[in-house]
C-alpha cells in the first residue's frame, strides 16, 4: 500500500531529483569524512553544516509550495511552524545538557536557574526523551496549524486576509516567545547544546549525520508531496486553488482538503525546524519574525510555485546568494533581495522552473507539429507539466488583468 503510494510519485523528473539528492546525501558527507584534509575534493565541515541548513530551508520551502503552489493558500506564517519544530528539538537538546550547564543543575536548563525557577514547568516534561521530542516536532506545529486552519477555513477566510492573519499568528508567537516567563529562554532562546542522541553535536560525524538526515527528510517529504499532488486529492487541491467556489458547488468539502494540506505542510515545516536547530546550534524568537516567513515565499516564487522541485531549487539558490552577498557585499543584499521580489513577480511569475517548463513544452509543441509521425517523444510529461504549473496567474499584461482588479480576493 505504502510502496505503491510512494511509487506513484515516480516519474522522470522525480527520478532526476532523487538521483541528484542521493548523490548529494552520499557525496557530501563522504567528501567530509573520507577524503583527507588538503585534498581538493575535501568538503570542510562548515560547508556541510551550511548545506545542511540549506536542505532544511528547502524542506520548509517545499512545505510552503505544497499549500501555496497547489492549494493557493499564501502563508506568511510558515516560519512559525518551522520555529515551533525547532523549539521542540531545542528543548530536547537543552535537557541533554544535563549537569554540563554553567550552573550544573541536572534538570533545570541554565536560563531557568538564572531566572530562579524552582522546578521544570509541566510543558518541559518528557523532552528528555528523543521519541517524545520527535513526536512533539510533528504534533505541536500540526496541532496549532489544525486549530488555526479549522477556524480560518471553516469561516472561509481566503486570499490576502488569510495571508495577513497568518502573519499576525507568527507575530503573536514572536512576541510571546520573547517573554522570559514563557519558559523558552526569552530573548536568548535555547542554545549551548552539547549532544544529540548521545553523539557530540560538534563532531564532524554528527554534522555529516545531520546533513544526511536533512537530505533524507527532504527526499521523503518530496515523495509525500509528489504522491499527494499526483493523486486525485492533488487534482482537487489544484481545482480549489483555481476555482474554489466551483469546487464547493460540485460537492467537495473544500475546507477539509485545505485543512489536510495545511496541517501536513505545517508538520513538514516543523520537521525542517527540528533539523535546522542542531545544525546551527541555536533557536531564538527571531525565527518567528514575519520577515522570515515572507522570505520563504520568495524562495518558492523564484524556483517556481507549484513545482515542488522548484521550491527546493529556489531555497538553495536564494540562500546561497544570501550567504555570498552577506559576506562579500552586505550593503547590497537587501537591495538584491528586494529587487528579486519585484523582478520575480513582474517578469518571472512562474519562477525559474515554471518558465523553463513553458519554454520546453513550447519547443516540444513546435517539434511535434513539424514532424507529426514522431510521436514517441513522451507525450505524458507535457500534459503533466502544464497541470502542475499554476494556471491562475495571468501573464503580466495590464489590459487583461484589469477586469477583476477591484477586489483583493481572487475572482472566485
Amino acid at each position, binding site marked *: 500500500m505504502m510502496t505503491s503510494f510512494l511509487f506513484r510519485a515516480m516519474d522522470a523528473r522525480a527520478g532526476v531529483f532523487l538521483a541528484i539528492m542521493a548523490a548529494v546525501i552520499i557525496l557530501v558527507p563522504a567528501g567530509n569524512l573520507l577524503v583527507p584534509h588538503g585534498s581538493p575534493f575535501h568538503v570542510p565541515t562548515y560547508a556541510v553544516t551550511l548545506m545542511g541548513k540549506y536542505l532544511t530551508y528547502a524542506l520548509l520551502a517545499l512545505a510552503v509550495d505544497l499549500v501555496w503552489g497547489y492549494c493557493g493558500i*499564501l502563508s506568511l506564517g510558515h516560519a512559525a511552524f518551522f520555529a515551533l519544530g525547532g523549539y521542540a528539538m531545542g528543548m530536547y537538546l537543552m535537557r541533554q545538557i544535563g549537569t554540563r550547564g554553567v550552573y550544573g543543575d541536572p534538570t533545570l536548563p541554565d536560563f531557568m536557574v538564572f531566572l530562579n525557577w524552582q522546578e521544570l514547568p509541566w510543558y518541559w516534561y518528557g523532552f528528555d526523551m528523543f521519541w517524545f521530542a520527535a513526536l512533539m516536532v510533528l504534533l505541536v506545529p500540526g496541532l496549532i496549524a489544525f486549530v*488555526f486552519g479549522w477556524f480560518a477555513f471553516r469561516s472561509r477566510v481566503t486570499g490576502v486576509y488569510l495571508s495577513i492573519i497568518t502573519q499576525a499568528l507568527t*507575530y503573536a508567537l514572536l512576541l510571546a516567545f520573547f517573554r522570559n516567563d514563557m519558559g523558552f529562554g526569552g530573548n536568548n532562546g535555547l542554545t549551548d547544546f552539547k549532544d544529540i542522541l548521545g553523539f557530540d553535536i560538534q563532531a564532524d560525524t554528527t554534522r555529516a549525520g545531520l546533513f544526511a538526515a536533512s537530505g533524507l527528510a527532504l527526499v521523503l517529504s518530496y515523495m509525500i508531496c509528489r504522491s499527494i499532488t499526483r493523486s486525485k486529492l492533488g487534482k482537487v487541491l489544484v481545482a480549489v486553488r483555481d476555482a474554489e467556489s466551483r469546487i464547493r458547488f460540485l460537492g467537495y468539502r473544500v475546507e477539509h482538503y485545505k485543512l489536510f494540506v495545511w496541517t501536513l505542510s505545517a508538520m513538514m515545516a516543523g520537521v525542517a525546524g527540528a533539523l535546522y536547530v542542531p545544525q546551527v546550534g541555536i533557536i531564538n524568537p527571531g525565527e518567528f519574525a514575519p520577515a522570515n516567513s*515572507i522570505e520563504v515565499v520568495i524562495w518558492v516564487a523564484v524556483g517556481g510555485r507549484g513545482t515542488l522541485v522548484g521550491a527546493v531549487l529556489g531555497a538553495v539558490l536564494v540562500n546561497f546568494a544570501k550567504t555570498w552577498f552577506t559576506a562579500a557585499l552586505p550593503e547590497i543584499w537587501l537591495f538584491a533581495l528586494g529587487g528579486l521580489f519585484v523582478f520575480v513577480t513582474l517578469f518571472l*511569475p512562474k519562477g525559474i522552473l515554471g518558465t523553463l517548463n513553458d519554454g520546453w513544452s513550447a519547443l516540444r509543441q513546435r517539434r511535434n507539429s513539424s514532424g507529426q509521425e514522431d510521436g514517441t517523444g513522451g507525450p505524458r510529461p507535457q500534459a503533466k507539466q502544464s497541470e502542475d504549473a499554476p494556471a491562475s496567474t495571468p501573464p503580466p499584461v495590464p489590459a487583461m488583468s484589469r*477586469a477583476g*482588479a477591484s477586489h483583493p480576493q481572487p475572482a472566485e
Partner: protein
Amino acid sequence: MSNLKSVFVLLCLVAGLVSPALAQSDTASLRSLVDALAKGKYAETEQQIGALVATGDPAVAPALQALGAGDLYFRKSDAQVFIAKKNGKRFTLTDPLTLEAEGDAGKREIKKIKVNNKLRRVIRAALGSLTLMASDPNVRVAAAGAIFKAQDPAGIDALETALAAETDDNVRLAMEQAHAAAVLNSDLDEAQKLAAVETLSEMGNREALSLLIGVRSNSEGAVRDAATHAVEKIEKSIAAWNTAQNIWYGVSLGSVLLLAAIGLAITFGVMGVINMAHGEMVMIGAYTTFVVQEIIRTSAPGLFDYSLFIALPLAFLTAGLIGIAIERGVIRWLYGRPLETLLATWGISLILQQAVRSVFGPTNREVGNPDWMSGAFELGQMTITYNRMWIVVFALLVFAGLMLVLKKTPFGLYTRAVTQNRRMAASMGIRTPWIDALTFGLGSGIAGIAGVALSQIDNVSPNLGQGYIIDSFMVVVFGGVGNLWGTLVGAMTLGVVNKFLEPYAGAVLGKIFVLVFIILFIQKRPRGLFALKGRAVEA
C-alpha cells in the same frame, strides 16, 4: 523634595525682587539676625529662627531654606553667615540676604551651621508662614503646599491669619487644604478634624488619599469613620480618573494607529492592493522631517518651531510621488493578483529600507520637538503631554480632511466610483488607471504625513515603518475594507483595548491578546466591522 526645591527657586525670585527695596532700612538688622545663627546650640538656633520669622520679611527665606538644606555656613574669621555650595574642592559663597556672590572659601575656612530634625520642622513651618503672606500668589500656593506636605500643626495659626487676608480663590483653596492637613495632625477637637476630613475628601487626589489613610489608622471614633468614608470616596474617584487616563492613552495609541493605517485603508480599500511598503512611506515622511529640521538648523534656526508645518507638505509630496512611481512602475502590472502584489511591495519595502539605511545610516536620527509640542499639562488628575494631544488632534484633522476630499471633490467622487464598481466607472468615462495612480499617491502621501507626526514620538530609524505595518493591517482588516469610518473605529477600539489590557496582562501579552482577538474576529466577520455590502462585494 522637588517641591521644596521649586519653593526655594520661587523664594529666591521673590527675595531678589523685594530685597533692593528693603535694603536701605532693614538690611543691617536682618544681617545681625542672620549672623546670629552662627552662634549657639540647637535651642538657641530655634529662638534665632523665631526672631527671623518675627521680622515677617520674605528676604530671610533663602537663609532659612539654606539652613534647612544644610547649606548655611559661617566664616570662621569674622563669623559672617553665607550660603555655601561645594564647587570642586572649594565652596562658592553667596550672601544669604542679597543673594550676591561673595567669592569662595576653602573647606577649613568655613563651618556648617548644624540643624537637627526638630529644627528642620521648625524651619519648614517658619518658611511656610513667612511666605504665606508673600505678594506673588504662586509663592503663597507653594507655601501652603509645603505646609500640606509637612502637616505641621505649627502652621495652623499662620494659615488662619493668611486665610483671613487672602483674596485669591485658588490660593484660599490651597490654604484651606493645608490647614486641614495641619489640623488633622494636631490635637484640636473632633469637630474641627471632621471639617478637615471633609475638606480633604473634596480635594480627592492621591496626596489627600495617603493623608487620609494615615488619619484612618491613627484616629478613632467619628473622625475615623469620616476618614474611612472619605478614603472610599477618593478611591472611587481615583479609579474613575484612572479609567479616564487609560481611555486617553488608548485614544492616543488609537490615533497613532489611525495615522499609520488610514493611508493603507485607502490603497487597500479602494484598489485592493496590499501595500507592504506602506510602513516605509511612513518612514520616508519621518526622514523628510529630519532633513527639513537639519536644513533649518544650519540655515534658519528661527524657523525651528515651524519645522513641522514645513515638513508636512514636503513629506506628503515626497511619499506621494514615490507612491505614484511605485504604482506606475510595479503595481499596475500586478492588478488582479493580490498575492503577487503583496510580495512585490514587500520587495520594494526592503529596497526603500536599505536605501534609507545607506543614505542616513542605520542608527536613529534625532528629530526635535518644537516648543509647542513639548511639555505636559494636568487635566483633573490626568497628565496629558502636548505631543500626544497634538497627535490626536492631528490624526482627527487628517481623517476629517480625507473624508472631505473623498466626499466633496470630483477626485473623491471618481475614487468612490472606482471603488464601488470599477467597470461601471470606466464605462462612464473615468480614467481608472489615473484614479488608481492618484489614489495610491494619496494613500502614500498620507502615510508620509503620518511619518511627520510619528517622528515626534518614535525613533526615526530605517525600521520605523516595520513596527507599524502589522498593526496597520490589523486596523484595516478589523475595521473593514473600503470604509474610512471603519478604520477610525477600528483604530480607536484597538488602541483602547490594548491600553486596558496592559495593566492586567503586561504590554506584550496585551498585544498578543489583541492579535488573537483579531484572528478570531476575522473568523466571525471575514470582511471586518463595517463591511461593504451589496453588489460591490459580490462582483
